[in-house]
């Protein structure tokens, strides 16, 4: 009955033309009338008993036609979409080409569709990743961090060293004048570089409790307060008090206190296991990124402009303006984020296509597991989460499919571990 013709305007944009027959409209108008007349009240008639003629006389035929079109056009449009096997990414723009007594008979819908993606080489992608060994030293430092949480501070009478906790009075001046935030008394701080401007902590190291000293430092050029950046400053420091951390012994007692384990060996093994899990997750992420980069590079297809625009909107929303000045105007920011938005859209289209090709979908079990995880995270029953999600459960499913597809890509990648290089891969 209805037939539609397809015109490709651009790689990702099509125009569909379809006609609507008079019978279809008439039937839809009759349905529309029945629906609307139910709630119409006119003098001389009981509610819902108004005949169609009288109804049209009072409200015009337009009301019915409009209501009928709202019903018919989406149906016909959906049929046309199915007929041509299109995957639209947005709502269509409708245009009435021909009409008969105010009833459209030919409609043109312009819509952006997903580009056809020719998949290739997404399986067996060769990537190398840096080795992420968990060394004895890593385990030790984790244990030490644990121990430090339970450390006691004991006062000492000796020269200050890095890692000690000092109680300080200081008064700082720039060009002989005090400045805001430059003066404090009785401030308790751990002596470690990076908390203060360079040179400050180094100047304190070696002081003994009760000692006074003047320390000359220079503010770094990129200091957050612009009027101080790059300026020399003098701090008059009094070291009032010095304490050091006394770490508990790493024995079975300690293990029992900080963990459900009974011996320090068990604790050590557990710490190692956790570190290894973190390292494995990191390795997997590196591999996933590398695979995605390669797969993205291997595919070239046009991106639907509307998807890029809406992704860009989201990015602009998410990304705080660069620099505290916030000077860069909106247009510039948009431009700078465009490449990122494009690659995101490309990645998500590609992942979708791969998921379709590999028939990866979110099974009810997957959804249940995800809900379970959410329920644990928010401490709410899974059923409550489910009802709170409502229709968002579909985006949850999209997320699951995405992750499964990424897993699939990683599992199918040929990974070589590069022993020499370490640190984050590009």
């Amino acid at each position: 009955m209805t037939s539609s013709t397809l015109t490709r305007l651009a790689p990702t944009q099509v125009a569909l033309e379809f006609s609507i027959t008079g019978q279809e409209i008439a039937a839809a108008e009759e349905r529309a009338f029945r629906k609307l007349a139910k709630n119409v009240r006119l003098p001389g008639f009981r509610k819902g008993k108004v005949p169609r003629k009288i109804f049209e006389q009072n409200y015009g035929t337009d009301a019915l036609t409009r209501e009928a079109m709202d019903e018919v056009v989406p149906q016909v449009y959906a049929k046309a979409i199915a007929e041509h096997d299109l995957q639209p990414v947005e709502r269509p723009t409708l245009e009435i080409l021909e009409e008969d007594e105010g009833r459209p008979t030919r409609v043109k819908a312009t819509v952006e569709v997903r580009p056809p993606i020719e998949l290739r080489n997404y399986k067996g992608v060769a990537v190398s990743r840096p080795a992420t060994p968990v060394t004895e030293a890593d385990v030790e430092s984790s244990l030490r961090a644990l121990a430090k949480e339970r450390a006691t501070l004991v006062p000492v009478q000796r020269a200050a060293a890095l890692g000690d906790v000092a109680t300080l009075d200081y008064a700082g001046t720039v060009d002989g004048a005090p400045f805001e935030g430059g003066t404090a008394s009785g401030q308790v701080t751990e002596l470690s570089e990076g908390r203060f401007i360079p040179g400050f902590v180094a100047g304190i190291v070696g002081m003994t409790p009760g000692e006074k000293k003047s320390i000359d430092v220079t503010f770094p050029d990129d200091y957050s307060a612009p009027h101080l950046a790059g300026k020399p400053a003098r701090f008059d420091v009094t070291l009032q008090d010095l304490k050091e951390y006394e770490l508990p012994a790493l024995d079975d007692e300690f293990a029992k206190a900080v963990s459900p384990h009974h011996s320090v060996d068990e604790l050590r093994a557990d710490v190692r296991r956790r570190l290894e899990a973190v390292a494995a997750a990191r390795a997997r992420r590196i591999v996933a990124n590398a695979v995605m980069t390669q797969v993205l590079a291997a595919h070239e297809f046009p991106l639907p402009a509307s998807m890029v625009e809406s992704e860009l909107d989201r990015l602009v929303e998410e990304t705080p303006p660069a620099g505290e000045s916030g000077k860069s105007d909106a247009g510039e920011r948009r431009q700078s984020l465009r490449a990122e938005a494009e690659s995101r859209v490309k990645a998500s289209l590609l992942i979708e296509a791969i998921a379709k090709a590999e028939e990866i979908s979110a099974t009810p079990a997957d959804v249940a597991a995800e809900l379970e995880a959410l329920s644990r995270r928010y401490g709410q029953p899974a059923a409550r989460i489910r009802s709170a999600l409502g229709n968002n459960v579909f985006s949850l499913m999209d997320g699951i499919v995405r992750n499964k597809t990424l897993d699939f890509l990683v599992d199918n990648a040929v990974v070589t571990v590069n022993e020499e290089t370490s640190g984050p891969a590009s």
Partner: protein
Amino acid sequence: MDARDVIVAPRITEKAMADALSQQYTFVVHPHATKTQIRHAIEEIFKVNVLHVNTLNVRGKSRNFARRGRRTTGRQSDYKKAIVTIKPGQKIELGGVNYFEQ
């Protein structure tokens, strides 16, 4: 009296619509119009043959209004209603629209 003064308006109600199916059309007419005047007026305006004219006077209902503590009563207008039976096969249309047809 001119025909248009005799016939005030068609009476479009559920009941009038139903009666129209048996050739009986209902109108509001001038209170002093006679059946003969109504017959001639209908025949002149709608170009149909009138078989019977039945008339009745409708008394307007009284309405009570209570506004800010003051109570007043009002009355709806009285009017004369005429039910005109026309020859089978003929019909009455108003302004090209057949009001009396479902």
